[in-house]
């Protein structure tokens, strides 16, 4: 499955579609500031969606490792965590660019920004933890347990706390939507670009992760 080509083609075509149609599609004028920068919805927001999916796969393999203790599960867990974290940092930096023009400064201490940054630091600690141990069995086991902790820290940092206070992002206290997007801001046209973008970026992340896994397997031989 991971060596098959068809889903890599799907990823490529979906992202080419996104980066062409994402510029052409008619977008609603939501406020005087946002204008065409709402098209960031096709590039910035999918980073977070893909990150959450990749980190979920990572914690899945972490739990699987604890049951099987197969090194391949540990490689998988590490690779998906790495790609997921990369997407998270891309999300933070693209968000900062957008925020500079929408909210007036790259970092406003918005609860969602702070939460995402904390979540990323927690995942960075995962790699520090891995690097600090030389015994392979011990490293894999401790890393798997920490991975489960790190994944469940995403719940408060990304999904709960940003909802409880006022936020510049949609979905804070007293505003519509979830902490990432206000569903009502997107019309059917935008959805037809947004969802393919999410699938495309996720598949690209899976592809890169499988390459890392295959490399680790080769190295272990």
């Amino acid at each position: 499955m991971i060596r098959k080509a068809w889903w890599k083609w799907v990823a490529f075509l979906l992202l080419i579609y996104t980066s062409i149609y994402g510029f052409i599609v008619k977008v609603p004028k939501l406020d005087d500031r946002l204008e065409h920068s709402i098209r960031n919805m096709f590039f910035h927001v999918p980073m977070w969606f893909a990150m959450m999916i990749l980190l979920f796969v990572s914690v899945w393999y972490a739990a699987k490792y604890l049951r099987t203790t197969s090194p391949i599960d540990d490689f998988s867990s590490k690779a998906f965590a790495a790609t997921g974290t990369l997407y998270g940092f891309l999300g933070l930096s693209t968000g900062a660019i957008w925020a500079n023009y929408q909210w007036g400064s790259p970092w406003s201490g918005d609860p969602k920004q702070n939460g995402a940054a904390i979540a990323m630091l927690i995942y960075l600690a995962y790699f520090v933890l891995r690097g600090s141990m030389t015994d392979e069995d011990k490293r894999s086991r401790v890393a798997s347990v920490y991975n489960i902790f790190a994944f469940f820290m995403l719940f408060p940092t990304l999904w709960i706390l940003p909802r409880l206070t006022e936020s510049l992002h949609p979905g804070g206290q007293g505003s519509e939507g979830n902490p990432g997007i206000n569903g009502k801001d997107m019309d059917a046209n935008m959805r037809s670009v947004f969802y393919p973008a999410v699938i495309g970026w996720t598949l690209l992340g899976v592809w890169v992760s499988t390459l890392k896994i295959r490399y680790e397997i080769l190295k272990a031989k």
Partner: protein
Amino acid sequence: MKKYFKSLLLILFAHVCVISVHAQDAAANASTDVMRSNGKIYVVMAVVVTIVTGLFLYVYSIDKKISKLENK
């Protein structure tokens, strides 16, 4: 199959390059020039498409190298 895949990718990439070059030496008649219409947004589109294509070519080449090592 793999050779076919690679050549198709290269053709797509070349296509994007041609579009961008075409944009630079196109006639000054703005109304008939797609790349110069709509606030030149299509120039940005060409840049993004080139980046995405290049990224995929890179990942694909790594994939091929790993496959080679696996088959050894």
